[in-house]
């Protein structure tokens, strides 16, 4: 970014202010101030709950409940969506414009400098870095040719002109600087592609169940503006088994130690494969990635109705409520006759037998299922959508309550039916994501890293060697100039002097 400004401004009426504004915007000072604003603008998003960002989707609503006066105002100014807020975008877009206004002219200048010869020497070399002067016992041409050859070997660009050698190296510093700044633009493209065409979703799948990749299979699906919702990669995945391992001893007892979801999946072309999905080891099906993001329990039950017919059978996903996976859920049997049956359940994967209604360990050691049975009209025929995790209590009444161990059966009064606790399956929560921009973002990140390192490590510097005849003999003068804040490395000059047979103990050394 330009740190120098030209001092002479021609009086161009009308356009003067525009010129002034542009120059101010692209000045380094503005860039520093904008960087500070960018940092400060990012702060509120880490303290306030965010939509589409946080791991806890209900956080914003909870905040509304706790601060009913403040929340609408914060919402009005996008404080629950800071990173998509207009004022946040304003800061980084201004910064990008400021940056481009500075970087593009510098690209042009670098191009010119790369094609031009290294600059001629200033009149007095003695003011410069690493200045040395000594009398040599050789001809000027030989000294200069030798010096030029040495500098070329050190990968300087060298020009031999008259009685002096001009050399310069470190152009890659500026190239690195430009690559770094341009990489930020590339990164923006990568991020934008992901935000325009990608999607994110969640699906809970019990052991033995199959997930088909269409929008309706997802428990939550967040498409982007231009996501091709009809054209999701088609595949079907079955969760064969989910194994979980927990720390059994020590101060971290109950902390998870390993998860392993065995899955088999069928692609569009009919090919079937099986694999493991573990934390840090997602499944990638043509760019759609499935991550194991959580787990829980799904008790397996069989519901029989008053006629003795099986009205429902299979695993039902219960949602964990605490760290030890005390889980709750409901079981619905709308096909039961003579009346529909519904159950509210509480599952304790480990009930050590102390009583109470909290699980004592997250693993499935001694499961207990507490059920409350209801009979009546479940209200599912009204056509209104209903949550699978709650019962509509309007048309039903409680008929029984019992704690069951695996294999036990609860009989309902008046011959309404029964429910058997057959066992417990696990279910896996999968985070499913598709981001077509991420490869571009990765390229940008590599450009950024390489460019940044080059621009900070490489030192751009010039070297001049000059010869003059004097009564004492040939006076050789050499000096360097660093174009960066850190000085040129001294070793280059020591080696150069040695190469040119500088007599030992030079007098003039700055």
């Amino acid at each position: 970014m330009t740190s120098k400004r030209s001092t002479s401004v021609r009086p161009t009426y009308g356009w003067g202010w525009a010129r002034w504004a542009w120059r101010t915007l692209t000045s380094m000072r503005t860039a520093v101030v904008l960087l500070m604003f960018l940092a400060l603008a990012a702060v509120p998003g880490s303290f306030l709950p965010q939509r589409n960002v946080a791991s806890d989707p209900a956080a914003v609503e909870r905040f509304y409940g706790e601060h009913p006066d403040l929340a609408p105002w914060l919402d009005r100014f996008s404080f629950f969506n800071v990173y998509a807020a207009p004022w946040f975008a304003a800061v980084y877009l201004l910064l990008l414009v400021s940056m481009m206004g500075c970087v593009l002219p510098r690209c042009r200048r670098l191009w010119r400098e790369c094609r031009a010869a290294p600059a001629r020497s200033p009149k007095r070399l003695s003011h410069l870095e690493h200045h040395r002067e000594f009398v040599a016992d050789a001809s000027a041409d030989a000294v200069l040719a030798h010096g030029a050859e040495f500098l070329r070997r050190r990968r300087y660009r060298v020009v031999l002109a008259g009685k002096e050698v001009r050399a310069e190296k470190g152009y890659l510093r500026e190239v690195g600087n430009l690559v770094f700044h341009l990489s930020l633009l590339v990164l923006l493209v990568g991020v934008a592609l992901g935000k325009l065409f990608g999607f994110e979703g969640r699906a809970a799948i019990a052991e033995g169940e199959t997930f088909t990749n269409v929008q309706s299979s997802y428990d939550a699906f967040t498409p982007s503006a231009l996501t091709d919702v009809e054209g999701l990669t088609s595949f079907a995945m079955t969760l064969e088994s989910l194994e979980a391992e927990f720390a059994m001893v020590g101060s971290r007892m109950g902390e998870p130690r390993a998860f392993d979801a065995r899955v088999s999946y069928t692609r569009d072309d009919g090919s079937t494969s099986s694999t493991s999905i573990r934390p840090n080891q997602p499944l990638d099906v043509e760019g759609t990635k499935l991550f194991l993001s959580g787990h829980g329990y799904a008790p397996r039950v069989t519901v029989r109705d008053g006629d003795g017919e099986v009205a429902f059978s299979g695993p039902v996903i219960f949602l964990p409520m605490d760290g030890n996976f005390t889980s709750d859920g409901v079981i619905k049997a709308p096909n039961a006759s003579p009346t529909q049956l519904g159950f509210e359940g509480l599952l304790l994967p480990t009930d050590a037998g102390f009583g109470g209604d909290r699980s004592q360990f997250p693993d499935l050691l001694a499961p207990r299922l507490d059920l409350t049975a209801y009979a009546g009209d479940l209200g599912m025929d009204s056509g209104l959508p209903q949550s699978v995790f709650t019962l509509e209590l309007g048309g039903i009444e409680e008929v029984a309550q019992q704690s069951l161990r695996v294999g036990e059966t609860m009989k309902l009064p008046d011959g309404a039916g029964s429910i058997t606790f057959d066992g417990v399956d696990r279910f896996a929560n999968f985070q499913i994501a598709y981001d077509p921009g991420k490869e571009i973002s990765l390229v940008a990140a590599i450009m950024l890293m390489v460019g940044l390192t080059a621009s900070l490590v490489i030192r751009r510097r010039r070297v001049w060697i000059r010869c003059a005849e004097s009564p004492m003999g040939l006076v050789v003068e050499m000096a360097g100039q660093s174009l960066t804040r850190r000085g040129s490395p001294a070793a280059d000059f020591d080696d150069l002097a040695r190469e040119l047979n500088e007599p030992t103990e030079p007098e003039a050394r700055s």
Partner: protein
Amino acid sequence: MNSAQLSDDLITAAVITYALAFCFQAAGLAIERVRRSTRRVPTLAVASAGVSRVSDSSTPAATHRSVYGLVGRMGTVLLGFGFVLNLVAVILRGAAAGRAPWGNMYEFAIVGATAIAAAYLVGLRIYPIEKLGIWVIGLVLVVLGCAATILYTPTDALIPVLNSYWLAIHVGAAILAGGAFTVAAVASLAQLLRIRHRSDSEVDPLERVSYGLILFAFPVWTFAVIAGAVWAEAAWGRYWGWDPKETWAFITWVFYAAYLHAQSTAGWRGRRAAWFSLLGYAAFLFNFVGVNMWIPGLHSYAGV
């Protein structure tokens, strides 16, 4: 005695050694101050901010060395010993856990202390920063003290999501950068605390210290953030999600970027730039302490 226990004992030994180093450095500074005031050397205000002034003409390097003397240098040697004990403790901790020894707050803290001491010792070979030593050792003592008392947890295996080679890369790079940021922040603080202003034409030796260290640490930090993004993509399905830890890593990065830009802006070098170094460090520190302890997010691995 198993290696986990040995590691704990070595941390205690390191704390004692650092404390001794602290005392020696303090004594060294006191001796220098007394000698200076009896000799009426005019740069009195300097010692209070703990600032080395070897390049200053009023304290030539030779007298500096004799004045600062043996006591202060013994402090530096003790700091070196403390560093070795600390490093061995970290290695043993890793051996006991069978993984990179940075999986919870206690381990972040003991490795962080090692990184700070290392950054100072390396910096000392390049720059004349003997007198920042006491501040650095003080910080290391606070970090290790908190580690041993509040944060301590016995060695244990990792939760599955942390169990990846990216842990060694991502967190290792962040801690390495953190060590250098810390010493840079100490130098910037000393620069700001100093009472006498320098003329603008002269580059403050303290600024050279913080600039050099940040020049090293900034790319390392950038790498840590990128490695974190790559890991997040493999673990959570997105490379950037504005999780509080990610947000504060971003804020830290932007402040240090502002620092580097300020360094090449006329009129912003010196004290103004030093403020950015401190702001960046404050963000870094908050990310390590505040975000781990108080803000819920995907990075809540404090384990305390």
